[in-house]
């Protein structure tokens, strides 16, 4: 076997347990948040991240040495890790926070991930996160992590091609004007956008294998990280109810109503 300068890739995929996106959310009576006594599942963008890691391994085969998934959350979050393992990840890390504690914030998460990466003996070459969590819509964790680590970042990725020999990745990003293609050096922080892939169903053989895969349990203090929130939520309310529209009898009437509302023609 000829000696290879290629380092095998270690991939880390942080995932978050959020309220399932199909659930109808209701603000709690105290107006401090939403009712969380509902179905939870993996943040959809994180599902896409796990799927991308698995597809990378299918493409690059042995060049991907390990895919680890990590979550920072309450005890129930370990189920979310099992789902990721059933999709094809190798091992999990669960940074457990108490059930009653507030949800960790992006900066806290980023610092915890930084500590985890430093701990990993084999190192980490690629971190794939969802672009945002559907509960807080913050969209900050990936960027903050890249900043803390001093690594390249490619966010809102809709296509990723990794070249292990050059230790580079070519990423297509979704931006306002269309698509942007950038070339990044590894190690790299990626955040996934919707069009990157469509996550697979967990297949039975993988579900059975997942039960035997290891999950390492850690606490925030093990990592030397303080997850206390620095933001205080003052109030959560529903958006104002939508008032009904109006039906008009003719185009002329429509034009008149638009004029009355102060909307004038452009051309």
């Amino acid at each position, binding site marked *: 076997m000829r000696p290879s300068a290629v380092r095998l890739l270690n991939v880390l995929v942080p995932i978050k347990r959020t309220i*399932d996106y*199909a659930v109808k959310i209701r603000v709690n009576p105290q107006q401090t948040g939403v009712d969380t006594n509902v179905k939870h599942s*993996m943040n959809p963008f994180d599902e896409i991240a796990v799927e991308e890691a698995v597809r990378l391994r299918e493409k690059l085969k042995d060049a991907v040495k390990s895919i680890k998934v990590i979550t920072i959350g309450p005890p129930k979050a370990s189920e979310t890790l099992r789902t990721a393992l059933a999709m094809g990840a190798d091992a999990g890390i669960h940074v457990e926070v108490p059930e009653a504690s507030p949800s960790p914030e992006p900066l806290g998460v980023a610092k915890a991930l930084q500590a985890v990466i430093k701990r990993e003996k084999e190192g980490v070459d690629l971190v794939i996160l969802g672009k945002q969590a559907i509960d807080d819509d913050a969209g900050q964790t990936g960027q903050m992590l890249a900043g803390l680590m001093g690594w390249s970042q490619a966010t809102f990725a809709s296509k990723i091609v990794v070249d292990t020999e050059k230790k580079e990745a070519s990423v297509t990003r979704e931006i306002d004007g269309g698509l942007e293609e950038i070339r990044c050096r590894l190690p790299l922080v990626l955040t996934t956008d919707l069009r990157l892939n469509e996550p697979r*169903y967990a297949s*039975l053989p993988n*579900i059975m294998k997942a039960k035997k895969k290891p999950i390492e349990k850690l606490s925030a203090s093990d990592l030397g990280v303080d997850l206390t929130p620095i933001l205080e939520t003052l109030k959560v309310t529903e958006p104002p109810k939508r008032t009904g529209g109006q039906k008009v009898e003719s185009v002329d009437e429509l034009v008149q109503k638009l004029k009355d509302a102060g909307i004038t023609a452009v051309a």
Partner: protein
Amino acid sequence: MFPTRQAARRLALQSSRRWSHSVAPSPRLNPVTEKDLAYFSSILQPSSILSTLSPSKLPASELDPYNTDWIGRYKGTSTTVLRPRTTQEVSEIVKYCNEKRIGVVPQGGNTGLVGGSVPTGSGEVVVNLGNMSNVRHFDAVSGILVADAGCVLQSLTDYIAPQNHIMPVDLGAKGSCQIGGNVATNAGGLRLMRYGSLHGTVLGLEVVLPDGTILDLLSTLRKDNTGYDLKQLFIGAEGTLGIITGVSILTPPAPQASNNVILALPSFECVLPLFKTAKRQLSEIMSAFEYIDRTAYDLAVKHGQGRALNDEDVEGAACFVLIETSGGKREHDEEKLNELLETLMTADKPIINTGVMSQTPAQFASMWALREGVTEAVSKEGKAYKYDISVPLSSFKDVVDVTRERLREKGLLGPKAVKHVIGYGHVGDGNLHLNVVADAYTPEIEAALEPFVYELVAKYKGSISAEHGVGVMKTHALHYSKSNTAIEMMKRIKQVFDPNGIMNPGKVLP
């Protein structure tokens, strides 16, 4: 494409259905005239009337959604559609029509598959229940729901969901079908295996009889043995004995845990042993067991009905089975399900290749969408001849193969004739949906299929219509599944309720 406006009389005497056995317009019935329209205008709101007659004079195309069935195979030519708002209005309409001998077609969501909810050529008036869509009462403790017949099934599901109840009946048409229509057709659907048929879950009905009398059988009692159980006659009568205007139904508690799996089977012979094993190991938590053959799956995927399985998972699969579990405790259900899956995956002689299990509510819905979407995929693929039959489980594959062979013998298999012959259905209830997908409806294909398929079913002593009903499509085939004595008694009962024959003429009875 659609008939231009014609005088009411000519319209009434023309049967404009494209297919086969034309229904002779009933000689005893009169078509709707302007005079009748004037009467209806005096008892109904203007927004409850759609008519091509004066003074309303709508273009015929406005009435197309009411005149044409969901498949597009049966096209009526009614001039007048009424959408009453109250039971009283329905009663007055029917009383008038009975006196004037005008045919009445009760209509709900118009999603039936046997042409039972659209007019034939007798100048009938369509009475659409869509404006009667109020929930009258829901008791969260007993789960008893009382609702207007025009409530859309999905909206009832949404109404009782916050109280943690579900409707006992569920089908692909849930976004459009109405509960009155479901009851009138004794709809089966995906939950029958677990919750039973509407004959058991409907506690009471409010019905307008063919002479206009309002028969109030709206009970909320779970048990009531006081005389003949009249409501059972209307359940499944397909609107031929009266118009259902109110329904009282028992809704089961929503399962705390739901899961589903799609299993890929190497051959059809594995379906029965799989059913036996699943029944034994899952026992009370199994709530659905659906079968789709490989072609049906491919069509559903082709037409984007739901997310497909991975290529490697479907390789070598001859057919698929979807199993749903519903229970009170997630951990308990998952344990049973995992044990079943382990047994199947590690068996010496495996009866499954592999399978996938839903991990999230979104995936759960997507897997169901693959099964429920087959019907829609079929209508996008071509023109479908649908045969909804009850036959022994072991013969499911044979029925499909024999039908395909028959078409091949007649030289009717091919891209310009019959594109696919597929089978899918409710294994748990012994109900197969045999679909012949053609490029276009032709007399040759129909002649090759009928009475061939019905005779095939009769050989198995099966039902020529497991759940879709008779409508106008299968009136002539009733004798394949019911004796002459039985049909004679049905005619006598019809005579008792509807001596003038105004209620949904041409449907159900030959």
